[in-house]
């Protein structure tokens, strides 16, 4: 499990962000001591830092620069100021990505995933009930059988497989697709889901994706 170090002075955001990220499969560490941030980050063994720029005692850019002096840990800067200058400053001080508040949580998650994917060699696989989703080559495999799926189908499956046991609403699936620039409507989603089911069935996976009428889908 990858560990994320959250540097954020707003208590509510800190707590809710930890909760949100831990529910999405990350280990989180936070701190209330903003004076020895670099030390805390180095001692945490985290794989990624989420850094808010507006901090008490110190300037976030300074923290970013200080962390960079001793460590290559990926840093995603979070700020409420969305000027070009802020973005430029973050990049100059060695941040890996830049995201503005208020962030769409799905986008935040996607950014974290993509930064982590770039920087760590994690196995890009997800396994649920004997079904394996390979993110690297967009395929699904089950008992030595393998089938390629489309980008959209992969997104849908990924979302459902990371929330096993919970009903995922159609609107939420669509929102995830919209956030990656696939502006699908209701009918298209139905078509996508049906195609995905057929593909799964063709390699012997039946009833993996269940419909909850009027509510959504569940694995």
């Amino acid at each position, binding site marked *: 499990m990858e560990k994320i170090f959250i540097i954020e002075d707003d208590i509510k955001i800190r707590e*809710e962000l930890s909760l*949100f990220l831990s529910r999405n499969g990350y280990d989180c560490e936070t701190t209330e001591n903003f004076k020895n941030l670099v030390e805390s980050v180095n001692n945490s063994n985290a794989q990624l830092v989420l850094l808010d720029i507006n901090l008490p005692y110190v300037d976030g850019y300074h923290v970013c620069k200080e962390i960079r002096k001793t460590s290559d840990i990926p840093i995603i800067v979070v700020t*409420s100021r969305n000027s070009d200058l802020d973005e430029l400053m973050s990049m100059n001080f060695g941040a890996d990505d830049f995201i503005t508040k*208020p962030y769409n949580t799905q986008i935040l998650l996607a950014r974290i995933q993509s930064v982590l994917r770039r920087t760590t060699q994690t196995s890009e696989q997800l396994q649920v009930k004997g079904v394996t989703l390979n993110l690297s080559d967009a395929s699904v495999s089950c008992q030595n059988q393998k089938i390629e799926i489309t980008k959209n189908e992969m997104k849908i499956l990924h979302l459902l497989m990371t929330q096993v046991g919970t009903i995922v609403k159609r609107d939420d699936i669509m929102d995830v697709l*919209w*956030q990656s*620039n696939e*502006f699908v409507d209701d009918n298209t989603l139905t078509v996508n889901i049906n195609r995905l089911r057929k593909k799964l069935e063709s390699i012997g996976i039946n009833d993996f994706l269940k419909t909850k009428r009027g509510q959504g889908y569940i694995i």
Partner: protein
Amino acid sequence: MKLRHWLVDKKVYFMAHSATLFLLMLLLSAIGINRSGQVFVLIFMVLGHLGYLSYDYFRRFLFYKELKEHLEGLDKKTLISEVIDVPNFHEGELMHHIISEVTKSMNDEIAVYKKQWKDYRDYIETWVHEIKTPLAASELIINNNSNEATKSIHEEIDKVEAYVEQALFYARSNHLEKDYVIKAVSLDSLVKESLRKHSKLLISKKCEVHMNDIEKDVFTDPKWLTFILSQIIGNSIKYSETPMYLEFSTRVNSESVVLEITDHGYGIDVTDIGSVFKKGFVGINGRNEGKSTGIGLYLCHELCLKMGLSLHIESEVDKFTKVLINFPITKHIHL
């Protein structure tokens, strides 16, 4: 200063002077000076006087002429005291002094307002950034407690965000300095970004999105244009039935790229369409929906003007509304 006006102005003086001359003639004849002597004195007096009067007239004439010309030529009239010379007659000096004093006082006052406006604008900017923290917190709380109620709150939070954004751009639009950067950007990416911003409302309104041929580069400020597009999409959402329809397409001619944003919503009444860009205008739709502020399109129009783009709107009631943004194609845009 016209000669005629000046003469009228001096009429009492001329009358008094004529009376004096007349009395002088009487006096001269009474003490026995002959007619030619009298005429000589008369001509001498009149010529001398005329000489002085023309000198007096011309120095005034020149001063006021200069003053008037400068005043007409000046873009900012309050700078007048800086450009005129102090004249060599007392009234003129007084006038010059008064103008300088008045101007200075006016400029001081303007400076006060400018500062107040800047402070206010800075405050709005800071406020907008501060409000984003509780908004971000709310969004996370909603995400961590997902149910029908919080989902509905989420939609409302998205609206709050849109209004906050509007306030920020309103403050920026009135600013005297340019705080935008015009560069070549892809329309496609900006349209998509704006759609993503409104994803929740669009999805809940079962929106069908079409994009035709929008992979075009245009010159604009990306943040400003994204804001404008968001406002337009926001309007379509407000004034459309579920399921709604949105289409983005471009037309290219030799002078410009035109982005067309079409919805199949309520449309705009003929009597309203001429006024949609006016500040505070709330048309039939706005009144029916009861949530129009009359700021959105006005702001879009202002921002477009500033960036050298033009904004048009076409509509037919119950059929469609089409917003057209015209991006001039020119290699030498004035930045």
